């Protein structure tokens, strides 16, 4: 597939943008945050997203999904970046991917429709350390029960199902856990981006394998790549939005008798970011297309886009905050909300350092 959007994709982008601007603008995130709500997303908005076909659109038609591909999911994620829409979109995409990859026929038939309809929030219990680390797990599965602690389970607060990665004698496995089951403690986090996440303890908690244990390893690897590509797309949306707002401010703010955007030093810095965004946009789309096409390079392209966008979005936010002057760091302005989300989204599933090292080792063999 070429690196331009198809007509269907352009329509999808317009639809997502229209919906999100209306139903999940940045002000909605702010209101949600200030309301003290613990769910941290608005169920009615989530329901409408389901109606629009925005939830896990990459699930193949054969599995009852829309079969629109990862590119479609990425384009929606990108639009969600523009408005910082706080929804369980990423968790749903991850859960659907895992079930598609490895679930039994019964599990697929049971879970996928609910996920796509927005009726089942599933938390992916994966991380255990301080930073992203796919290397291994200390959580164990034995005699039908999981034990151990998982960190930063996205949408873990209020989730109705958890998919837990745990070690078995036959390698890592994926397990379905009911959060209301015995031995589960969900400890809500208070993330700086005001989204839903929790640390979760398991103590001899009953768990059911998701598909065959032997297939889990590849499915996890694949799913991590999907999550990375979607986060890269979201980061692109955030960076674009923050950059556009900054350019608008440069035209509007007057100092020394003229718009600050007329100062060449600021112009060149802005132009450089424009150039980097223009370039990196292609890498984000390429990773999504590669996933869709089953390209062997997909896994490295996902690292490329996540690593590059984590760095670029941060650089954009530094300039955005700085160019807004003093008010850039006030809570009144939205820029700070973008800044905080960029930090979290960069940290999830590997930051620029992680992916640079991964690419060095695996893609370049250095």
């Amino acid at each position, binding site marked *: 597939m070429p690196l331009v959007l198809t007509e269907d994709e352009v329509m999808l982008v317009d639809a997502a943008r229209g919906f999100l601007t209306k139903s999940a603008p940045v002000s909605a995130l702010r209101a949600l945050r200030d309301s003290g709500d613990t769910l941290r997303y608005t169920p009615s908005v989530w329901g409408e997203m389901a109606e629009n076909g925005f939830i896990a659109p990459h699930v193949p038609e054969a599995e009852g999904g829309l079969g629109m591909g990862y590119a479609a999911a990425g384009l929606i994620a990108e639009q969600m970046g523009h408005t910082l829409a706080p929804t369980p979109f990423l968790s749903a995409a991850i859960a659907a991917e895992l079930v598609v990859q490895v679930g039994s026929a019964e599990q697929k038939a049971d879970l996928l429709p609910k996920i796509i309809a927005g009726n089942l929030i599933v938390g992916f219990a994966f991380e255990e350390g301080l930073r992203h680390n796919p290397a291994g797990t200390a959580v164990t599965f034995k005699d039908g029960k999981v034990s151990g602690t998982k*960190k*930063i389970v996205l949408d873990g607060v209020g989730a109705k199902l958890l998919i837990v990665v745990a070690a078995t004698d036959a390698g890592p496995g994926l397990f379905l856990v009911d959060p209301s089951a015995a031995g589960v403690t969900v400890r809500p986090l208070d993330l700086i981006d005001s989204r839903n996440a929790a640390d979760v303890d398991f103590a001899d908690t009953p768990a059911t394998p998701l598909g065959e244990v032997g297939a889990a390893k590849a499915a996890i690897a694949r799913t991590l790549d999907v999550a990375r590509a979607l986060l890269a797309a979201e980061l692109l949306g955030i960076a674009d939005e923050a950059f556009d707002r900054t350019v608008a401010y440069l035209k509007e703010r007057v100092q020394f008798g003229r718009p600050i955007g007329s*100062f060449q*030093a600021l112009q060149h810095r802005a132009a450089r970011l424009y150039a980097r965004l223009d370039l990196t946009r292609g890498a984000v789309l390429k990773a999504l297309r590669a996933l869709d096409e089953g390209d062997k390079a997909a896994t490295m392209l996902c690292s490329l886009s996540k690593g590059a966008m984590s760095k670029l979005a941060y650089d954009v936010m530094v300039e955005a905050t700085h160019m807004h*002057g*003093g008010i850039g760091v006030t809570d*009144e302005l939205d820029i*700070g909300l973008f800044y*905080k989300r960029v930090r979290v989204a960069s940290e999830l599933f590997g*930051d620029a350092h992680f992916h640079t090292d991964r690419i060095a080792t695996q893609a370049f063999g250095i």
Partner: protein
Amino acid sequence: MSDLDDFRAETRAWLEANCPQSRRGAFRGFSTFNYWGGRKAVFQDEDQQLWFERMRDKGWTVPEWPVEYGGAGLDKARANILQQEMRRIQAQSPLQSLGIWMLGPALLHFGTPEQKAEHLPKIARGEIRWAQGYSEPGAGSDLASLSTKGELKDGQWVVNGSKIWTTNGDKCDMIFTLVRTEPDAPKHQGISFILIDMDQPGVTTKPIKLINGDDPFVQTFFDNATAPADQVVGPRGKGWDVTKYLLGHEREMIGSSMTNSVTETVSSVAKAKLGADGLKADPGLRIAIAQHEMESWILGIAVERLKDMGKAKQFSQFSPSVLKLMGTELNYRRGELLMSIGGFEAINDLMSEPVHSYLHAPANCIAGGSNEVQLNILSKRALGLPEL
């Protein structure tokens, strides 16, 4: 034994005897842990009070100021010894104060004898807590475009307008402000430096909430606020000269505080959080930390050099701008690295030090003259590059 050696020995003995153990230890940031004085001040504990009062009575809150103004009248050499001996036992500063750091130097340089006698002792003794009133919503980098207005009526200044970014303005007693008093003069020449008591109905404040949820700044509103006619520092309409003098001070302070105000190095945090194995597994982060530490080290040496140059009477006109520029940018990267090191923990604690550095660092690049202003100063004045 020289006089200086005697002084050192006496100082050391006095500090050992008088500095409470709880007031020793690594600097813990400009937090409420420190005593800032003022009418509304409350001591956190007995030791804080004891230490402050003992130092105040020695004149050692401002050791180099004349005794008549509440100082100890120490010469440079003795002041350095005192500083070294305090550092030796990691004695906390007894009094944090914009009065000491900013207004004091301005008054010593520009103030009338009456102004000095009125204000300096109260600063030295922590009786008045001062706020700074420069920036306005429409006048940031272009400070001289400020529009807060002062008129002399019936022997007093009547001030209207507002100031932004007043640090802890709600906790302060008085504010030194830049006010446009000659509306018809060119923009740099119509400004006066006026001292205003904040404890009057004409002065109100409103907190500014920052993106980390903290609100260390306020916006200060002047609605027919008044000040006696003699509370102008420097000649009327010449407030810009006072400001330029003070901005130099402030820039240097902000820049060099980047090397002093940190409690822990990034590398020590990294070692503690991630361990040697964690760092080995993340060579990119490790190298980024090392590069930051090298830059930080170089900045520290530059501050040391600047002090040595000062002692040798080699005035370095541009160093404040350099330190401000490089120090604040370094702090940016420090915040980012601390966030990376803190990982999932760091993004879960809005009030943690990493998040504070990360989210707050941009403000440092703006405060005290944005870094663009520093770059303009350097390119025009240090390099002599032509105006457009």
